[in-house]
């Protein structure tokens, strides 16, 4: 086994400044510019009297994996719900592929962005039937059967997620990892450029977590999907993401490439932990120690 060196990463966080309202590109690593898939402009949302999300202003780069991290109750899942149109922001707007999301019909939006909800409950149906539900945005008001194109997308989605061999299994009988793959296949059948995942590795064992994250990376690398995910496991987020966004108390305190976010110390500030890096060959693991 290759020797591992523990490196402590700790810096002073730099708050993210306001961005131009009409930006279509975001800065990438090494001075490159990246096209924007999702734009969030001056978004605020309140559950009670106190603002829950306040003046959120950010962009998610196209064809990249962006992880949203932050302590419990900081507004990560609420942000994804706003992006998906499940809840309307009280101020500001969200644009998906340059179009305001609230100006789209539900099915139109579902053809641009697929959301795998947090802890999606296993339905009483087969894996194939679940994946076929992903074609709902392409079906007419009264049509419920799949046409040849729908079937092609369902087969491709199952093949890409590696679940063809248990297509006839009841979703409720699957293991947590297999079940999550089936749900990801459903989002793939939606044939969207953007996939949002709300805590995709929750309740999974360590092997299943890495399998799911590797599948996410394959979807990004091979199918060019833009991935936006809320994730609690910082090690997974740091290992498998291109970009990170750190949230704290309804605000974005840092959004940049993984290395740039680590350099700012935003994670330390948000979670009150020390981040230790363990490089090994061409891979890096991260461990966190509470202050």
């Amino acid at each position, binding site marked *: 086994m290759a020797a591992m060196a523990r490196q402590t990463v700790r810096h002073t966080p730099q708050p993210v400044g306001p961005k131009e309202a009409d930006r279509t590109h975001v800065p990438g690593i090494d001075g490159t510019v990246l096209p924007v898939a999702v734009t969030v402009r001056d978004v605020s949302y309140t559950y009670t009297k106190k603002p829950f999300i306040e003046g959120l202003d950010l962009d998610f780069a196209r064809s990249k994996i962006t992880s949203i991290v932050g302590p419990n109750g900081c507004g990560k899942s609420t942000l994804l*719900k706003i992006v*998906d*149109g*499940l809840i309307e922001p009280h101020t500001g707007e969200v644009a998906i592929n340059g179009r305001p999301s609230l100006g789209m*019909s*539900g*099915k*139109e*939006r*579902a*053809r641009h*962005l*697929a*959301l*795998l*909800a*947090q802890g*999606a*409950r296993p*339905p*009483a*149906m087969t894996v194939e*039937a*679940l994946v076929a*539900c*992903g074609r*709902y*945005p392409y*079906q007419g008001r*009264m049509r*419920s059967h799949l046409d040849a194109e729908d079937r092609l997308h369902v087969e491709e989605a199952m093949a890409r997620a590696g679940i063809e061999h248990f297509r006839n299994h*009841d979703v*409720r*009988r699957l293991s947590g990892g297999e079940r999550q793959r089936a749900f990801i296949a459903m989002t793939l059948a*939606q044939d969207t450029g953007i996939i949002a995942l709300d805590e995709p590795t929750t309740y999974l064992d360590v092997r299943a977590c890495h399998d799911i994250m590797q599948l996410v990376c394959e979807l990004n690398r091979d199918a060019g999907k833009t991935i936006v995910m809320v994730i609690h496991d910082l090690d997974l987020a740091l290992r498998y993401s291109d970009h990170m966004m750190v949230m704290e108390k309804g605000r974005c305190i840092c959004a940049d490439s993984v290395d740039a976010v680590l350099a700012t110390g935003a994670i330390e500030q948000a979670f009150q932990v020390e981040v230790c890096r363990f490089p090994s060959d061409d891979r890096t693991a991260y461990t966190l120690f509470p202050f």
Partner: protein
Amino acid sequence: MEPRRPKHTKAIAVAATTTFLVVVTVAAFFVGSSTVGFPEFWALVTGGLLSDSAKSILLNVRLPRVLAALLAGAALAMAGALIQAVLDNPLACPNIIGINAGAGFAVLLVSSFFPGLFAIQPIAAFIGALVTAVVIFFISLGMGVSRLTVVLAGIALSSIFGAGMNTILIVNPDAYIGASRFLVGGLSGVLMTNLVWPSPYIVGGLVVAVFVANKLNIMSLGDATAHSLGMNVGRWRMSLLGLAALLAGAAVSFAGLLGFVGLIVPHLIRFLVGHDNRIVLPLSAAFGAAFVVFCDLLARVMFAPYEIPVGILMAFIGGPFFIYLIIRNRRYGGDG
């Protein structure tokens, strides 16, 4: 967890249900308290020699009764399947959550004020059923509301509407001819004129329900996932609950407070063919129709020459089944 099913279970279930439906429907024509039997029925079908009295019994008594049983059974079973899926509550059905009682109260109310106006009865029943369904729907939306809470709220509403119906019948005993049959649910004395107005609502409602069954499959994924797939969950939930209220209300307008069909039948069908609502809904309607015809036939012959209203027989079967469901709900992940 449901059992693994053989490959052709759905085809077998469709064939068995169709056979059951045809057999009991034909049998219902030649079984009854009078002496009119199979030879008379066969003579009517083939155009053979038939006495006027036998012809009158077959066409004016048994035909409307069989049609009423078919329509009421299909409508209430479909309404039950819709309500269970929309509320995500296996304990729900039109009579348990008070929809039947709401419809019944509205029917007695308009019968009291506008006697003989059959046309407005199904409309009133629909409004009564819809109001109850909306109240139950909003109760079910409350944070932390369990399945049993919804059932208890339905029982409370049924009690209120029951008190209203009894008040109407005490104040105005002539409000509804055959009121005692109406209150327990029965099909004796139903005339073709009673079916003219409700039947288009039922047939139309059944057709629409079959076409939108896939929406229920999408809803079963949970609100967030259904929304992400582009469904307006709130609008569809209300629409489908309205459809269930239309079906149940139309059935109550002529069959009275016929209970438990909408509880028993969808459970039986799901046990046989699984949870795909594109199969469950049409099969529930077909089996529900056959089941009510069969139970009405039994109710006619069990204590011959006396007849009991089919609603009583339904309660004898449905009551224990409901208790079984409550116990199962508490044992297997039910929320109590």
